[in-house]
């Protein structure tokens, strides 16, 4: 057995006799697990009486065929999903340095609060007199969001970041229409998240890309040159996706406003500046806040999130329904788009009901726990940790934008791998064998072979040091052309590299019972 410099055993677990497979196909704690459909055998995990409905009132629309769902008892279902869970990497089990994704700790108090029956078991259309506590919670969260951002208003219903972008752009669209104008073009920097141009198109605009400067910042001069009477808005991420604060943001905002356009800020990276910088002071007109990033509602394998949008004075009247107001009886939701309160001109509705209440409870719990001082400290620690990584790795990995400082994420490109035969993908996959989730790869697009590392504020110094040691050693080995561990990595994960080309060429997107294969063959 070999040991690394921190006294940890570093052998790959070669104890099992070479060339001998296990009888079960499982390997110790690593279990292979079939699909739930392949495990079904006509059992049931619930106990319901067998109620007959001979005289049904289904209007002749009763189902004729079986559905085809498998039947399993509770212990079988529990074991199946526990086994599946063990094939996942998670923040709770290790550092998760996905740049732009903000994989910070998810406090369990937040989960507990969201499950209080008064929130978790509350119907969205229960009489408003029976939901005053929920409305008060939303009102308090709105106060936190507007105070932290220095913006006068917030639309709460968007269900994720991209949905928030859509909400912001629809408010801009409505504001422009209310001036009797038509503006079709939206300026989007090439370093932007893919959701920005996609949302602009979704909202019926055309996209005009703004180049980045060699230093990773948006080219403010090029941006200003593109402004004109047909420009509706710019969509700018700040801090940007290279992990840099756009220092010229106020000048850009002024120029945008002078041209009669609006400033949409992608708030995906608000976690770098929350409690330190108020976007309202930077001339922002609309910005979504990913509650699942900055305010730590769990990512849950891809959602659910929440994307409330803060709005400037100029856009506030166009916020979508529902609107929350105070009247004689307490708090009240205005749900009628045709009868808005005085001065409001809502552009429509983003979704049924009132938004992601479950995420609101978690986010407010996070905020109350942190307090304004904790929110500020979290931002500072996130930035400190990213700079620590940048400073510790820049001698062996290539940082395209120099010495820093960066904000909450450290960006590297693949020039340090040039001539080694190791790609960004190989490098990232080798991290999996070392027990780490890879960083964000090949994004942002303005950097060749990008590797974007966001450690967040949740890591201890010891954890950061361990991570740095691993990456430093990997980079050193790659540069020395010791490339064995990179080729074909990962070797030690539940799966080796998966054939994504085959998956896309002949898509298999659902389970089909063997029977139907037989039928197809006949």
């Amino acid at each position, binding site marked *: 057995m070999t040991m690394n410099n921190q006294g940890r055993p570093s052998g790959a677990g070669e104890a099992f006799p070479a060339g001998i497979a296990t009888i079960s196909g499982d390997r110790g704690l690593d279990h292979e697990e079939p699909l739930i459909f392949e495990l079904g055998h006509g059992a049931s995990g619930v106990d*319901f009486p067998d109620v007959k409905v001979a005289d049904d009132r289904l*209007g002749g629309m009763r189902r004729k065929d079986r559905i085809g769902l498998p039947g399993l008892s509770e212990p079988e279902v529990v074991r199946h999903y*526990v086994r599946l869970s063990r094939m996942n990497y*998670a923040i709770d089990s290790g550092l998760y340095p996905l740049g732009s994704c903000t994989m910070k700790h998810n406090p369990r108090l937040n989960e507990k609060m969201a499950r209080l029956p008064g929130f978790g078991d509350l119907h969205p259309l229960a*009489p408003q007199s029976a939901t005053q506590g929920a409305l008060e919670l939303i009102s308090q969260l709105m106060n936190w969001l507007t105070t932290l951002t220095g913006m006068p208003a917030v639309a709460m219903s968007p269900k994720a970041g991209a949905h928030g972008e859509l909400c912001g752009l629809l408010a801009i669209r409505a504001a422009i229409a209310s001036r009797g104008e038509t503006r079709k073009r939206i300026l989007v920097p090439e370093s932007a998240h893919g959701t920005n141009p996609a949302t602009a198109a979704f909202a019926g605009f055309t996209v005009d890309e703004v180049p980045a400067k060699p230093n990773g910042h948006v080219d403010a001069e090029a941006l200003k040159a593109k402004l004109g009477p047909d420009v509706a808005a710019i969509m700018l991420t700040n801090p940007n996706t290279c992990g840099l604060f756009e220092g010229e943001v106020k000048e850009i905002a002024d120029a945008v406003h002078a041209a009669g356009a609006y400033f949409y800020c992608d708030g995906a990276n608000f976690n770098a500046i929350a409690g*330190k910088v108020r976007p309202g002071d930077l001339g922002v007109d609309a910005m979504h806040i990913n509650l699942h990033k900055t305010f730590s509602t769990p990512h849950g394998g891809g959602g659910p999130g929440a994307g409330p949008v803060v709005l400037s004075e100029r856009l506030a009247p166009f916020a979508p329904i529902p609107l929350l107001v105070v009247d004689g009886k307490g708090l009240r939701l205005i749900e009628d788009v045709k009868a808005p309160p005085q001065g409001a001109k809502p552009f*429509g509705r983003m979704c049924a009901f009132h938004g992601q209440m479950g995420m609101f409870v978690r986010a407010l719990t996070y905020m109350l726990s942190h307090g304004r001082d904790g929110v500020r400290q979290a931002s500072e620690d996130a930035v400190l940790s990213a700079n620590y990584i940048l400073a510790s790795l820049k001698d062996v990995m290539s940082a395209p934008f120099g010495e820093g400082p960066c904000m909450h994420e450290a960006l590297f490109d693949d020039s340090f791998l040039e001539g080694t035969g190791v790609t960004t993908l190989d490098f990232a996959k080798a991290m999996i064998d070392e027990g780490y989730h890879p960083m964000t790869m090949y994004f942002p697009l303005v950097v060749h072979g990008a590797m974007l590392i966001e450690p967040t504020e949740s890591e201890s110094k010891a954890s950061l040091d361990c991570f740095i040691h691993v990456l430093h050693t990997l980079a050193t080995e790659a540069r020395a052309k010791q490339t064995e561990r990179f080729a074909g990595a990962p070797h030690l994960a539940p*799966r*080796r590299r998966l054939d994504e080309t085959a*998956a896309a060429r002949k898509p298999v997107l659902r389970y089909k019972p063997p029977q139907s294969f037989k039928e197809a063959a006949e």
Partner: protein
Amino acid sequence: MRYLPLTPDDRRAMLARIGAPDLDALFRDVPKAALAPLTAFDLPDTQGEMEVERTLSKLASRNVAAGAAPFFCGAGAYKHHVPSAVDHLIQRSEFLTSYTPYQPEIAQGTLQYLFEFQSQVALLTGMEVANASLYDGSTATAEAVLMAQRITKRGKAILSGGLHPHYAETVETVAGLFGPMVRGAVTPGTAEDLAALIDEETACVVVQSPDVFGLIRNLKPIAEAAHAKGALLIAVVTEVVSLGLLEPPGAQGADIVAAEGQSVGNGLNFGGPYVGLFATREKFLRQMPGRLCGETVDAEGRRGYVLTLSTREQHIRREKATSNICTNSGLCTLAFTIHLSLLGEEGLTRLARINHAKARALADRLATLPGVKVLTPAFFNEFTIELPRPAAPLVEALASKGVIAGVPASRLLPHDKSVQNLLILAATETNTDDDFAALTAALKEIL
């Protein structure tokens, strides 16, 4: 602060390695004027877990939970019993605190349950393919209309008067940018004539069944009418438990199914997070929005799963993507999948029969009250009654008597005077005979 591991000593040591004198030096790209002092934020400071829990519990106690009263609200969100195993399993750290499965080698857990989810949704709806979820039923419906507009290269959408008004408003807000949205007549308890509205400019007809008033619709004739004019049928389901007992939309000619999956595995949560189900025909696969999980093999030939066909998606295709969606309803899909696995074929069909039996029993009881008329002849677990007076104030009055009687139609259609006396009620397996007795007694008293 209990969530922040760095100590003052750590911070000093880290700053020394960076070569920065203090934390502010790291924020030097931020214009000085834009740096706000802590006092600029009029908000409270850090609090311990106990204090925060006290504050939140107090807020929660001011709400009437569905389980705390005889309760009959539906209209797009339904109270069902969720087995204890579901919430326990979805809180496994490896599910709860993982990201979108972009690194499939270490995300097979998420990917396999997404594959199972897609399979279950396709089976339930009777469709060929399903995606890995959208935000909720309403946004799934809006995406379906946008997809139909792309496929047919037409703009007009016909929205049934029985479509949940929140869904209709969501569709109008988004898809209304690309063509006219025509609403069918509101005819509680009967099916309006939609075929007459379909013409050569129509991209799709959107029909909900059971509709917002609880009425079960026969989709077949509408599918035929739509297809005859080259339009698509989008079927909307807000109560998926109904699919345990009702003919699935896929068997009735639907081209796209958009559904709300909250009923299976997910709590009421005051309206979100929920889970949008989205299924269609294989021939429309490449026009689908949202993530898709597909089966493949790894370098050693072992079966595994990956996100696939991502050339439809925003992170690859940017402004040419089929949708802007990124984050979806991951953990809610897991809850759905686990609950449906526990139910199985037998459990789901029994659950559906119980729901129907409960609703039938409630309707029969209410029909005996003087002045009350049941308007919905064919329903699953939800129906509409006509009261002799406006329903909204009656519902408030009943709430003050401790009975949450249902959703007044006027809450959803505030400008439609013809529905102001209508009350939409749902009954599920969670309702007891005592609930029914409490509602009928309270209603009798105030009518």
